[in-house]
């Protein structure tokens, strides 16, 4: 299940504190073994996740991004995940326009008690990203150019 340095891919997770982060904790407490590729960033609410975070990750070298929040209607902040769902769905449709494979991005809902489900989500998503292989990396010179452009614009 575990991958050595060569085969491990870069997967970034954005999880809401109340449900999914708790669900990942529950999976840990239950010792549900998972692939090691995923790194989790904790945010208060899935509604806090700016699509930009996902984009930045993917553009800067992530092979996959996974977002998880509370189940619809269970949001700790009553409606944050509804905003998240709308934004992330839009993002998914927008990714191909940017030349990014939209299959590298997934969002899901996991509650704090669903440790087993979290394990399955991580396993499935990791396998799925491994099937896609490493993301094509952007040309560094292109990136430098873009950055320079950005700088001139900002100035």
């Amino acid at each position: 299940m575990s991958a050595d340095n060569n085969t491990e891919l870069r997967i970034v997770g954005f999880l809401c504190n109340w449900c999914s982060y708790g669900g990942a904790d529950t999976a840990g407490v239950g010792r549900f073994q998972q692939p090691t590729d995923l790194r989790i960033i904790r945010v208060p609410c899935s509604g806090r996740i700016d699509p930009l975070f996902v984009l930045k990750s993917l553009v800067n070298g992530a092979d996959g991004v996974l977002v998880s929040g509370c189940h619809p209607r269970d949001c700790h902040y009553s409606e944050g995940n509804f905003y998240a769902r709308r934004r992330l769905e839009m993002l998914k449709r927008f990714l191909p326009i940017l030349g990014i494979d939209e299959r590298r991005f997934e969002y899901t809902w996991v509650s704090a008690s669903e440790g087993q489900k979290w394990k399955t989500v991580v396993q499935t998503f990791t396998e799925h990203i491994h099937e896609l292989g490493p993301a094509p990396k952007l040309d560094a010179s292109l990136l430098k150019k873009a950055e320079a452009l950005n700088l001139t614009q900002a100035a």
Partner: protein
Amino acid sequence: MKIGVFVCHCGSNIAGTVDVASVAEQARNLPNVAFSTDTMYTCSEPGQDEIVQAIKEHGLDGVVVASCTPRMHEPTFRKTVERAGLNRYMFEMANIREHVSWIGKDKEANTRKALDLVSMAVAKLANDRVLTPSKFDINKRVLVIGGGVAGIQAALDCADGGLEVVLVEKTSTIGGKMAKLDKTFPTIDCSSCILGPKMVDVAQHPNITLYACSEVGDISGYVGNFNVSITKKATYVDWDACTGCGQCTEKCPSKKATDHFNEEIGTTTAINIPFPQAIPKKASIDPEFCIKLTKGKCGVCEKVCPTQAIRYDQQDEKVEEAVGAIIVATGYDLFDWTRYGEYGGGRYPDVITSLQYERLLSASGPTGGHVTRPSDGKEPETVVFIQCVGSRDKSVDRPYCSGFCCMYTAKQAILTKDHMPESQSYVFYMDIRAPGKMYDEFTRRAMEEYGTKYIRGRVAMIYPKGDKYVVRGSDTLLGTQVEVEADLVVLAVGAEAAKGAPQLAEKLRISYDSYGFYMESHIKLRPVETNTAGVYLAGSCQGPKDIPASVAQGSAAASKVQNLFSRDQLESDPQISQVDIKRCIGCGKCIQTCPFGAIEEMDFRGATKAHVIETVCQGCGICTSTCPQGAIQLQHFTDNQILAEVNALCQPTTILNYE
């Protein structure tokens, strides 16, 4: 910036599958890290002391602890760094136990992952800012909405504890459903004898202001300082003058008014006092049936009232109250059983609800406690009870158990035998749920001592036959069909959320489930709190509950309020949004999306800007990801802080050039 990193062994919990020493060593090479070490049990006293020591010795500006989940020990370590003189928000955690050591066995991969998590925490910490909570005064008054037994208990507990209480009840008397009950399980003590004195206490308590016939309008403000507008409905009687003598109700010629208190068994007069023990004991006019108000004639009550209390021109009145906490106790309502066409859909006069039956059993009810059939006034010989009408039935979208119907049906079967020793009762049930103290014994008594015949199965249909009703159902234990000829059929209708519960929830900004019951903050550990600070729940507004449970919750909610009010000032969580006035273009998008109404428009030198009301903001950050300008930033989770974590993981500099 000088950051200290502490990597925890957690005994062998982490050290077993993560090379903690190596993580600590490599962490030293991360930008801003001035000190790093690995410790056995960071959360223990020596572990915490080590952090305090290191902060002082190395002049650290912030600390990263790599150990368990922040959901567990973040508060612990925040206090630790505070002890050493740092701001508690200059602290981050890397979860290398639940998210690393416990879920993977490959030590090499785990160590790599742990180091990544540490570098993310370090990167975020480098962007952390000192945050200070502000303090504000608490208004130590409490609003209780709903005057059923739960609300009464909560109001009395608060008032006895010295708090000023405002109690708002929708109907013209407090007491709720319990006031309508005859006797109560499992002790068969008289409901009004145990509730009555409590109701009187409410009326006489110097700390309680009671608004009956009233409803809550707008609610603004936040924990410690809510402003509530209350609408006092016109009763057409000056309650200051009314003594409750009842002379008007005796003389009122309009006798066909809906008798809400008696569950519409019989009728009442247009001007009425719902029942003799009503609190407040004041008359009110039902405008729908008053001849004076509908036709302009009559005026009898005005003539007979000895205190000249009648006011035909009375209007609704608005009052404002300021409180620091709110207890919601709006109870439940009964499922509309007429949706069951197979039970007659309301067409058979002698098929009645359980609550109507309580009124027939009650000595203060419309029949003086003599059980008679609504159709012909005859005493019934065979009474059939049907349980789970509108409970545990997906076909009517009520999949949940109403909790108390098994028990009250057993009670009603016992009372039926008490009232009419010659009668025979049948109960159709799905399962008997009697898990409370003395509850199972109670239902057994109904069967064994009182000879009630329990039949396990659903009733398929009821149809009239002569002056009786045939109740046809299955007996799933015998595997046969059964038919019982009944004189009276009593439906144990289920409980559903009180009418208007979702609308009230919107005003309070609390959540409700798909059936309208209010949601507690945590189903096990925070059962009377809501996710809106300062708003608490009591009784069956949260889900069907019997009297003991409703009373317990009333007291629990009151003690939460006492706890909140035990301080004079509250500290607000500084992890809230802040607007950068220079960036804000006043588009108002954040105002539209904030689920808590925490953002308002503000005038800044003639320009419209957004402004966050500190005490209302809950810190979700929905606004931050909405703002097109990046002007409104959730503190401690700013764009920069989260992107710092992203950058620590995905660095464009490491991008391979495939040329």
